[in-house]
C-alpha cells in the first residue's frame, strides 16, 4: 500500500512476462541442459537455422501463452485455420519438420499468423518470433517446476512422471504421481532432496545423476532470478541418454525486478495490451476486461469488489483499475483518460473511499479530466471518507453531468442502468 508508492521506490511495477526461448536461455546460464536452437524472425532465417541444426528440427511459435502445440494457426487475411496438405488437422503452434525446405515453408505460414490456444482467448496472438530447435529422440516426458507454497511460505520443488500435462491437472486426477519437496531458505535445495524427487518420479537409474544436477540448476536459477514460478514441462530423457528441458516457463516476481534491471529488456510489448502498457507508465494498475462499465477505484480489494457489485447489478466490468492509495490529481486524470479510451466503455463508475486520498483531491482530478476529455458518456461518482462533503460540493458545482451516488449498491445500479441505456 502506501509506503511503497509514496516514496517512489516500490512504485507500481509492471509484470514482465517472457518467451520460452528467453526462459531457456536463463536456465541454460545456470546449467540446465536445453536443446540447441535459434530464434528467427523470417522464413529464410528458419531455413538457415534448420540447416545449421542438422535438418530435422522443431519450429515453435513464441507467444506469451501456453497450449501452443494444441493451438490452431489462423490465416491473418481470411481468419480461417491454415490447412496442411494431406492432413486432417490444421497447422498448430509447434511443428516438427524434415529439412530446411520444410522449415522455411512452415515458418512462412506461422510468421504473421494468429495463433489461438486455450490460453490466448478467442482473439489469439500474432506470431512474430519462432524458435527453431534440434529435434530430439524422446524416451519419456516428465514435469518439474518450482513455485511458492503459500500455506508453508516456502518455495516447493514439484515433479511428476506425467510430462506435457499441466501440473494442476495431474494434481486433480493423479495426485500420487506428484513429488513435492519444500525448501527452507536457510538450508537450500539439497542433493538428497533432488535425489528423492528423481527416484520418486522414476527417472532411470543411469540418468539420476544428470536429473539431480538439472534440478539443482533449476533451483539456483529460480532463486537467483527471483522467479515466482519456473517450470520445465516437459523435461525429457532422450534415447542418447540425456536429460533435457524441452519447454520452459519463468514468471518473475514483479517486486524483485529492482534487483534485475536486465530482465526489463526481455519485455515484448507486442504481447501486451496497449492500454495496460500506457497505464503502467503512470504507475496505474489497469487490467482490461471485456464488459461495458468502466471503473476507477482506489485500492485493489475495493476495485475487485466494485467489479463484483457491477456484475451483481447486471452489468459487466470493462476493466480493473486501481489508482492507488495516494493518487494525485494528475494520476486520477490519466486513469480517467485511459479507461475512456476503451471503446467498449458505455458508462463509468468512480468509486473512491478516501482515507489518505482525500475526496476533494479526487473530485478535482475527476472534474479536470472530464473537462479535458469532453466526456459524453455517463459518469457515476461515489465518494466516501475524508473531506467527502467538499468533494461532493466540487462535483456538484462543476457544471458537468455527473451522477452522484450514495453507497456502492446505489452506484452500481445507477451505472449499470446508464450503460444499458446508452447501448439502446
Amino acid at each position, binding site marked *: 500500500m502506501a*509506503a511503497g508508492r509514496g516514496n517512489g521506490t*516500490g512504485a507500481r511495477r509492471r509484470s514482465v512476462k517472457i518467451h520460452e526461448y528467453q526462459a531457456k536461455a536463463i536456465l541454460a546460464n545456470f546449467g540446465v541442459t536445453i536443446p540447441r536452437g535459434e530464434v528467427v524472425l523470417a522464413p529464410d532465417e528458419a531455413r538457415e537455422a534448420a540447416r545449421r541444426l542438422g535438418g530435422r528440427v522443431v519450429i515453435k511459435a513464441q507467444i506469451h501463452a501456453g497450449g501452443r502445440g494444441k493451438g490452431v494457426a489462423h490465416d491473418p487475411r481470411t481468419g480461417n485455420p491454415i490447412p496442411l496438405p494431406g492432413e486432417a488437422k490444421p497447422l498448430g503452434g509447434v511443428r516438427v519438420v524434415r529439412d530446411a525446405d520444410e522449415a522455411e515453408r512452415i515458418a512462412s505460414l506461422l510468421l504473421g499468423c494468429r495463433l489461438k490456444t486455450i490460453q490466448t482467448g478467442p482473439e489469439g496472438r500474432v506470431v512474430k518470433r519462432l524458435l527453431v530447435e534440434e529435434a530430439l529422440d524422446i524416451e519419456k516426458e516428465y514435469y518439474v517446476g518450482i513455485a511458492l507454497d503459500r*500455506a508453508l*511460505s516456502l518455495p516447493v520443488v514439484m515433479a511428476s512422471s506425467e510430462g506435457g500435462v499441466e501440473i494442476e491437472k495431474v494434481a486433480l486426477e493423479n495426485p500420487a504421481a506428484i513429488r513435492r519437496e519444500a525448501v527452507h531458505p536457510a538450508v537450500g535445495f539439497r542433493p538428497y532432496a533432488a535425489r528423492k524427487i528423481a527416484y520418486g518420479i522414476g527417472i532411470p537409474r543411469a540418468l539420476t545423476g544428470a536429473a539431480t544436477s538439472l534440478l539443482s540448476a533449476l533451483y539456483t536459477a529460480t532463486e537467483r532470478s527471483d522467479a515466482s514460478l519456473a517450470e520445465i514441462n516437459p523435461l525429457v530423457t532422450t534415447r542418447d541418454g540425456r536429460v533435457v528441458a524441452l519447454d520452459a516457463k519463468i514468471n518473475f516476481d514483479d517486486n524483485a525486478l529492482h534487483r534485475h534491471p536486465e530482465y526489463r529488456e526481455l519485455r515484448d510489448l507486442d504481447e501486451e495490451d496497449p492500454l495496460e502498457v500506457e497505464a503502467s507508465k503512470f504507475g496505474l494498475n489497469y487490467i482490461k*476486461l471485456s464488459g461495458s462499465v468502466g471503473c476507477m477505484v482506489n485500492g485493489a*480489494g475495493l476495485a475487485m469488489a466494485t467489479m463484483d457489485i457491477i456484475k451483481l447489478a447486471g452489468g459487466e466490468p470493462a476493466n480493473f483499475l486501481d489508482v492507488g492509495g495516494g493518487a494525485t490529481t494528475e494520476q486520477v486524470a490519466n486513469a480517467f483518460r485511459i479507461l475512456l479510451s476503451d471503446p467498449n466503455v458505455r458508462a463509468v463508475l468512480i468509486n473512491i473511499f478516501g*482515507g489518505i486520498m482525500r475526496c476533494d483531491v479526487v473530485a478535482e482530478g475527476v472534474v479536470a479530466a472530464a473537462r479535458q476529455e469532453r466526456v459524453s458518456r455517463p459518469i457515476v461518482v461515489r465518494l*466516501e471518507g475524508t473531506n467527502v462533503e467538499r468533494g461532493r460540493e466540487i462535483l456538484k458545482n462543476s457544471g458537468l453531468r455527473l451522477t452522484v451516488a450514495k453507497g456502492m449498491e446505489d452506484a452500481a445500479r445507477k451505472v449499470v442502468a446508464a450503460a444499458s441505456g446508452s447501448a439502446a
Partner: protein
Amino acid sequence: MSILVGRETRLLVAGITGREGTFHTRQAIAYGTNVVAGVTPGKGGIALTADGLEKIPVFDTVAEAVEKTDANASVLFVPPPFAADAILESADAGVPLVVCITEGIPILDMVRVKAALTRSATRLIGPNCPGIISPGKCKIGIMPGSIHREGSVGVISRSGTLTYEAVFQLTERGIGQSTCIGIGGDPVAGTSFTDLLELFARDPGTDAVVLIGEIGGAAEETAADYIRREFRKPVVAFIAGQTAPPGRRMGHAGAIISGGHGTAKEKMVALTAAGIEVVSSPADIGEAVARRLASRPAAR
C-alpha cells in the same frame, strides 16, 4: 477490549523522518496513539521539527530505541528494498508486534523473514497492509481513524480501502469495532486469518468477526476449517474478486487465480460450508453483521 494493540501500546516508528512516516505518525498521535520513538539510521539524536512530533526522540537503531523507551510495537514506513531488513531488526530488538505497511517486498525476502520469525516471539502484521487499529485506543498504520468507532466487532482483511468500506458500513449502523487488522495483500503474510481468529476467540470484548478475503491462495479455506472446528462467535465474510479473470494479478501481489485455484467461488463455498454467512455483495457486509448481532442471545 481489543486484541494486540490498545492503550498499553508504546509505538516506535521506523522511517519516521520520511514523508509518509512523518504524516502517519502525526495522524497516529492525533488519534491518541502513544508514539514513544522514531528510528532512522544516521539520524539518531536529531530533533524532529514537524508539528506535534517535537518531543519524539529519534534513534539510529531499533535496539537502542527499545532500550531507552520500552517500545512494545513498531510500524515500518520503509521502502521495499529495505523493508525485510527493518522487520528483522525489530524482531532482533525483541519488539513483540511489528506492523509493516510497505508494498512491494520481494517474495524471496519475505520467505526468509517468515522463516526467521518462526524462531522469534515477534508477531508480524503485513506486509502490504493498512495496519491495525483498536478504535478509541490505538491506531497503527494508514487507515483513516475517523471512520472507526469503539465496539465489539473484530475485522480481519487482506485489503485496505475495502476494509474501510466494511468498517464504514458498521459504524454507519452504530456498530463499533474491537480491533481491525489488515493482514496484507502479499502471498507471504506474517499473520493469517486463523492466527487472528484465535486471538478474537479469546477476547471477551469481541462478539463477532468480519472476514474480508480475496482471490488467490487458500488462507480463507484454512480459516473456514478452523472456524468450523472451534470458533464459536458469529462470522460474516466477503470475498473480493468474484469477477476476476484467471491468471491475472489483481493489484495485490497475492490476488491471482492460478491453475484454476484460489477462486472466489471456492472460498465462498468453503466458508459457507463452515456455517459462516458469506455475502456476495460488498454493500451487504454491515447489514449482515447487524442481523447476526441482533439474533444473538443478549448475555455473553
